[in-house]
């Protein structure tokens, strides 16, 4: 239809098969050349460019026969592209009922305030909305949707290592967000 209406317009010529062949070759060469460019640009999507390293929580001798949770400040080294940042975070080292070491994040799963250990009450209490947790982090009362978040930990050369994480707040299940 369009062709009929515009039949007075000059014909589109100048598109020889040779032209198509050259176009095809150019597109092919362009596609090959763009492979390294795309791989370069997509590097952060394919590789871990932001990574939390293991932090040292101290020698194991500090954690034998823990009666109450022990508060530790850890240095969290974080790789962010070409730089490395260090920040300080608070964790609690506790024992599970079967005497395994457990590291708890001090961030309250409710709204993210810093949970504190109360010697008087023998439980963790969040200063913001009074959520309370047992010595092993189990939820006792208050608005928190889940127990305190335990962090990945391992023992190496007699030292306790922790990998610090943030978890999504206000949801009943633990979910890593960074």
């Amino acid at each position: 239809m369009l062709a009929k209406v515009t039949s007075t317009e000059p014909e589109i010529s100048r598109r020889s098969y040779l032209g198509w062949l050259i176009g095809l070759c150019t597109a092919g060469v362009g596609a090959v050349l763009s492979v390294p460019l795309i791989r370069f640009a997509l590097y952060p999507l394919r590789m871990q460019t932001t990574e939390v390293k293991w932090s040292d929580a101290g020698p194991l001798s500090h954690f034998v026969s823990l009666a109450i949770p022990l508060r530790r400040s850890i240095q969290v080294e974080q790789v962010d592209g070409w730089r490395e940042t260090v920040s300080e975070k608070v964790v609690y080292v506790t024992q599970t009922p079967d005497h395994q070491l457990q590291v708890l994040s001090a961030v309250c799963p409710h709204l993210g305030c810093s949970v504190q250990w109360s010697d008087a009450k023998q439980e963790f209490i969040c200063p913001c909305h009074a959520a309370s947790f047992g010595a092993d982090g189990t939820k006792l009362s208050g608005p928190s949707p889940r127990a305190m978040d335990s962090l990945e930990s391992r023992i190496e050369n007699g030292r306790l290592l922790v990998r610090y994480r943030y978890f999504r707040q206000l949801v009943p299940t633990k979910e890593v967000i960074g």
Partner: protein
Amino acid sequence: MSSTNQVSNRSYPEPPRRLNEMLRWFDQRTGLNALMREALDEPIPGGARFAYVFGSALLFIFISQVITGVFLALYYVPSADHAHTTVAYITKTVTAGSFLRSIHAYGSSTMVILLLLHVTQTFLYGSYKGRRELLWLSGCVLFALVLCMAFTGYLLPWDQKAYFATAVGTNIAGEVPLIGGWLKSLLRGGTDMGTLTISRFFVAHVLLAPAAIFAFVALHVYLFRKAGAAGPISEDLVTPRQPAEPFYPRQVIIDGMFALGIIFILALISHFIPFELGPKANPADTRYLPRPEWYYIPIFQWLKYWPGSLSFLGVVVIPGVIAFLFASLPFLDRRMERRPWKRPIAVGTYTFIFLALFGLGYTSYRSDHRDPGYAAQLLAQQKETEEFMRKPFEPVAEPSPAAIIAAASNPLVKEGSQIYQAQSCQACHGEGGVGSAAGPKLTGAQERWTAEQLSALLRSPSTQMTAGGMTPLDLKPEEMRALVAYLQSL
């Protein structure tokens, strides 16, 4: 005129109908067909030739530089404390980073080579004659812009050779009478080279010069089409008489094959001999022998012959006069004679300048390799570069808040921090020992050395440390203890 008619009467096969309609729709709105016809049917008197490839090859490599440059900018940070780290990150960590950086870095050399070939072809064919003065002048501006791109891009990795070559290069600007000092400070963003120098060079390299190149390429191509292709040396410069062949298809194919060959060779070299990155610039290193990129070596050698009060003559006047004569060539050489053997003065001068540049380059090479001291130092620099290339990428570390707090609370550490300031350690090693262009970082010293080892190293630094500009510290034992306590807290 008959030649152009002959060109546009050629018939081409019709593409399939549906596509034809789509193309028509597009053409009605853009006029693309007329534009394509104008571009592709450019008449070339005497027909397509290999000799005419250099201009389009330059444009091709320039576009390759723009594309690779844009991608490199995804990771590059133009500041003295991050430039080298980000280039190291590109080179050592990012996929295809070393390859793309090599294409970009070798691409600059390729542009200079193609530029010389393009100018030589234009010169030998006498294609600057016959109402082509502005075409030649716009080409001269492009020549200067390409050299400017090469000079400004060279600094950006902020490694040893980048730093020192640019220090020498900007010093040359200081030789200009009256405004020299001002000009040098303008280029450097201050009296010394630093982070502001990188910012300035970065802006020139990625914004100003490329924008100017785009504009002048457009002007150059327009003026070229206005004057018409000059054709072979047997052709008349103003009213071509030889039968013309359109640019498309033969010249397009020849140009395309040449461009393909160049990118293929560039890719091979970039893959097998990746462009190196040296250790981070250390302004305190007094032994470093700066050497510019090969295309600046002849100028570099030339400057050696003009000491003291004469330097102004050699550095500014003579190159300035040569550049001026070069730019005014089509105004000086008014004859329509194109055959090189009938133009002995012009061709002779051109050849002489070329041979002189080669001679200067060779003299520089020979003097560097004949002097055992120079040769050894250049070899040591090459070794340092190779050693740096072998080391894995090390991210920039920022001082930990705990170290800052510890420094504030422990009196010994606090005293040590004052000694650190009083001894001007931060001038090279940075505030809080984070390191700077001039010295390595000191953070994490506790893990590498005991207190005794540290104080021993501070009293009598290792040869490597002395080479980097470290001076021995003569402190009282209690002061040394405080300083070591501070270093260990970092």
